[in-house]
């Protein structure tokens, strides 16, 4: 079975500071990993995804994530955040040995302060 843990429910940060949102998954087989963002009062949209190949994945709005197989992690990073990055971020996983329906983490609320 596949599962996802987002280690922080809330991450407060000042504008222009770097941020890392943590995501760990559990699966012993090949995985596909996704980060989605949900701005206030909106649905989710894809930020980036890892399918195969380079472990460093670049997404929209300056975000990137690194797939680390040995640590079963897929942490999301941004070197300098803006107020407009305030949103809920969800990590999701599917795996070759499991369902094609993604398993979502519980979300991390990124709060950017001026």
């Amino acid at each position: 079975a596949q599962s996802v843990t987002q280690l922080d429910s809330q991450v407060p940060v000042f504008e222009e500071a770097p941020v890392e949102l943590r995501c760990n998954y559990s699966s012993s087989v090949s995985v596909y990993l996704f980060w989605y963002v949900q701005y206030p009062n909106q649905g989710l949209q894809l930020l980036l995804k890892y399918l195969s190949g380079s472990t460093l994945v670049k997404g929209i709005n300056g975000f990137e994530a690194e797939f680390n197989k040995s640590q079963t992690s897929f942490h999301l990073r941004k070197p300098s955040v803006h107020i407009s990055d305030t949103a809920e971020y969800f990590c999701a996983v599917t795996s070759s040995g499991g369902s094609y329906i993604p398993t979502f983490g519980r979300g991390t609320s990124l709060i950017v302060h001026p």
Partner: protein
Amino acid sequence: DVKVTQSSRYLVKRTGEKVFLECVQDMDHENMFWYRQDPGLGLRLIYFSYDVKMKEKGDIPEGYSVSREKKERFSLILESASTNQTSMYLCASSKVAGVKYNEQFFGPGTRLTVL
């Protein structure tokens, strides 16, 4: 661009009412999903469908039913609404059934309040 639309952004209903939430996608996607989102619980899958007239239970189907009569439309039905069904409901779609690397496309959500 894929567009997923939901019939209402906000809905207020009374306990015991029958409630219909409609979702339409315009990119010929095979899969459609209904989730509910509650603070601290993330997204929980209610039902999904991989083809017309086909449906599968998700993690929390109790109290809900679904209908997919046309490929582009997926309806969520609350047969007798209760206050514990007050939540944000999100519809999503993805391209091909059984493919694990497809991303999901989400609608804007319907915030349902049951009084």
